[in-house]
């Protein structure tokens, strides 16, 4: 896997525990200098505007630390949400883990 951290996220990313768990996981990685992060959202059943905000916040903080955050395995629901909020083109989105990992420089 090299120096890419793959984070598997499951369940609901909503205001409260879901979004704060994601925030904590990303902060933890960045604080350890692990800033090539692939967020696997394949098991995410639901995400609200707060969860979308956490993805944006994570993307910005990883980028500001000199790293890269990419997304893997979006469900149709999450993909639709990122599209209507015009965020789909902001994130580098993959559907194959090996290819996604290889895409980090």
């Amino acid at each position: 896997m090299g120096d890419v951290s793959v984070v598997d996220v499951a369940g609901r990313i909503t205001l409260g525990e879901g979004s704060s768990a994601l925030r904590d996981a990303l902060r933890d990685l960045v604080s350890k200098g692990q800033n090539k992060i692939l967020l696997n959202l394949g098991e995410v059943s639901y995400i609200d505007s707060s969860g979308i905000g956490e993805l944006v916040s994570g993307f910005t903080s990883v980028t500001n630390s000199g790293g890269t955050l990419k997304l893997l395995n979006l469900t149709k629901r999450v993909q639709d949400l990122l599209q209507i909020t015009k965020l789909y083109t902001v994130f580098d989105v993959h559907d194959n883990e090996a290819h996604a990992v290889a895409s980090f420089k």
Partner: protein
Amino acid sequence: MGDNTRHASETVERFLDSTLESVDRAEELAVGAAERAGFDDDDLMKIGMAVRESMVNAVVHGNRYNESKKVRLSVTRNSSRFTVRIADEGEGFDFDRLPDPLASENLMRTSGRGIFLIRSFMDEFRVRRLDPGGTEVTLVKYMVSK
């Protein structure tokens, strides 16, 4: 007879505490009523999320988690409309002055998408100030005859 049953009207009303648990409860109640009304999975998701975002606004921004303030949820349906009303006891804010979350300068903001998602997911969205205080939002999804 079957038609009458399918289109039967229904009203659910609850006064909920200003907590995040109430957000989940309201979503469950609204989605349950929408299921009984015959909406498909895609519409159930949209209704659920619109209710969730509205409840978060009421609990977090309206009532500010104040234990002495309640959120009134009502869900009604008739043969043509599925209507959800959510009212808080907060000070209210100007919905018309919200920044456009799709504008390039706002795209990377970490908040401010809730109302946009509600408008995207429902057929009608209205806001009215309550006297003496509070805000009521009305969300409507049109019933589709099967």
